[in-house]
């Protein structure tokens, strides 16, 4: 035996690995990976701008009735006094004024600003809830496929292939077309919104499911999972306590990047007339209406810009989040 080492009195202060770990550089007391990602995100001005726009849009959607009431033009009110009876266009071309910030629609003179603000509600509500549904199903099935392997993995992976091969747009148009005005105890807008959330959310889960399966497969081989097993940990403990904290970053990243895709998909469905039914304001529906009035460009411009800015903001924020949470994935 060797001479006993004075272990308790020995303090190792070497931390060369901290440097290797990259941006977090100096070892600060108890900083979690989440906190490190946050400091990294704070330095990313583009992502912060995106986040600011996203938060602004969410606030607009939540407080839509309040905002609209300041201007006093409910989204479905006609303002026929602003419309020229001969051309059916707004009298001064756009109808833009301090009263109608984005002008008015041709024919019936509905306030475009109010409709864009209310459209944000539908867009964001559907995009968020559909993403939540995709992430929930995708994470659950993806982690199960990766963790249990064997026939569970085969069945789930084959299901993913089937879903990915599914002609989603055609199916969405068909399904949205045949569902009656009231079904499942819901009717009107509530039914259409639920239907869109279900269609968009349910058919998007394989994307996140595949990512989760891959991440779980690689996590499962890490020794800390073996360590937990050798301590006698059961499956649920390993999945929820050991694996899930490591999956939060990819879940957040892909959820943030899935939201703009869902916004676009919802707009496309509304544009095609199978989304939320008129007169409820949606961005896609407004674009669809505006197509007939291509000589009146502001009608198309504002809802188009709304979609563009929203999608861009989410994408910039999502990219920044990915860089912050996983700097090696650039």
């Amino acid at each position, binding site marked *: *035996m*060797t001479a*006993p*080492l004075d*272990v*308790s009195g*020995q*303090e*190792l202060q*070497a*931390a*060369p*690995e*901290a440097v290797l*770990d990259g941006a*977090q550089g100096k*070892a*600060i*007391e*108890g*900083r*979690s*990976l989440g906190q490190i990602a946050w400091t990294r995100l704070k330095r990313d001005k583009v992502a912060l701008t995106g986040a600011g726009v996203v938060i602004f849009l969410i606030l607009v959607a939540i407080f839509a009735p309040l905002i609209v009431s300041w201007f006093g033009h409910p989204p479905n009110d006609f303002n026929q006094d602003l419309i020229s009876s001969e051309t059916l266009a707004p009298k001064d071309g756009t109808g833009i004024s301090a009263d109608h910030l984005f002008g008015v629609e041709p024919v019936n003179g509905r306030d475009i600003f109010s409709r864009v603000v209310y459209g944000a509600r539908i867009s964001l509500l559907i995009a968020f809830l559909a993403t939540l549904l995709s992430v929930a199903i995708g994470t659950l099935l993806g982690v199960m496929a990766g963790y249990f392997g064997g026939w569970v993995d085969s069945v789930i992976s084959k299901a993913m292939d089937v879903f990915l091969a599914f002609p989603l747009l055609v199916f969405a148009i068909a399904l949205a077309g045949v569902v009656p005005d009231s079904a499942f105890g819901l009717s009107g807008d509530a039914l259409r919104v639920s239907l869109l959330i279900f269609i968009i959310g349910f058919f998007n889960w394989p994307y996140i499911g595949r990512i989760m399966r891959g991440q779980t497969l690689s996590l499962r081989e*890490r*020794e*800390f999972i*073996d*360590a*937990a*097993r*050798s*301590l*006698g*940990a*059961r499956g649920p*403990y390993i999945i929820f306590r*050991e694996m899930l*904290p*490591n999956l*939060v970053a990819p879940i957040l990243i892909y959820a943030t990047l899935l939201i703009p895709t869902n916004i676009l998909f919802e707009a496309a469905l509304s544009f095609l007339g199978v989304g939320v039914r008129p007169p409820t304001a949606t961005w896609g529906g407004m674009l669809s209406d505006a197509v007939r009035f291509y000589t009146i460009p502001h009608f198309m411009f504002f809802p188009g810009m709304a979609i563009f800015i929203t999608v861009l903001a989410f994408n910039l924020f999502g990219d920044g989040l990915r860089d912050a949470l996983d700097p090696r994935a650039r």
Partner: protein
Amino acid sequence: MSETPEPLLSVEGLEKHFPITKGLIKRQVGAVKAVDGLTFDVRKGETLGLVGESGCGKTTTGRLITRLLEPTGGTVRFEGHDITHMSQGALRPLRRDMQMIFQDPYSSLNPRHTVGAIVGAPFRIQGVKTEQGTKKAVQEILELVGLNPEHYNRYPHEFSGGQRQRIGIARTLALKPKLIIADEPVSALDVSIQAQVVNLLEDLQNELDLTYVVIAHDLSVVRHISDRVAVMYLGKIVEIADRKGLYERPMHPYTTALLSAVPIPDVKARGGRDRIRLQGDVPSPLNPPPACRFHTRCWKAQEVCKTVEPPLVALAPGHQVACHFPENAPAPADAAPEAAVPAAPGAATE
């Protein structure tokens, strides 16, 4: 080291064959015989070193003993319980007494958990309540392994490799186990840190009355820490002996070759020995050579080595070798190697 007659861990004929399947219906076309019939005992308080080249089945053996893998054959007995095919549920209480140290300190700690959560996990998983609470218990263990208990709330990425391995050791010690399987505990560390960790393991053994199975490929580390050493080649033990006997009088040609490959730091002393260079690669465990598995690379191999598998027999007290032509063998009247050679085919009935 104290020796008690009843072994703490007893492994007999342990086998692990990984099936190789092909095609849609998963027809088995072969098996990787990673571990193919191991027999050894580990007595309370001793340290058994398990050495061998990469791919010889050392790590698989460790995982079979801790039941991270399901053995294909043989038995593993721990404290008299047959744990070979025990269900994970029945095994859970026994796991308190049998813990594992992992090879890679960068992968064995969950990067999302604090040190406190990692070292406290055994208490939570096993539902163990401590008198002054888990936090106090964890901090005591951290101090025991030479870490600052103030680092309780830090994350693994804030530590160096050696410190991380100490965290891993702290987790292993949390439930005061009797047996610790250390799978290459220092091979991922700098040489300077290796000595610290090896010494820490020894001190802890003296302090807490631990029994170790140390898996390593580094013969110097094994020599430093082990009381007995088992040498593995292609899933089998070729020689098992106490440290002194094995290092000073190796009997199996493979052991001799391994020992001759250990670097000697003293330049002047280097000339005084012959290095044995083994020819060729380790044969594939998918299709191991028949009889003595070492005969393809052994310079002493003869016809008998290709046809008759040498049994693991004690040629000296506490020194077992599986070879037809052992070196350095003592020459008592009837067990003389030269005399045994012609008799070996008949004696080695398999």
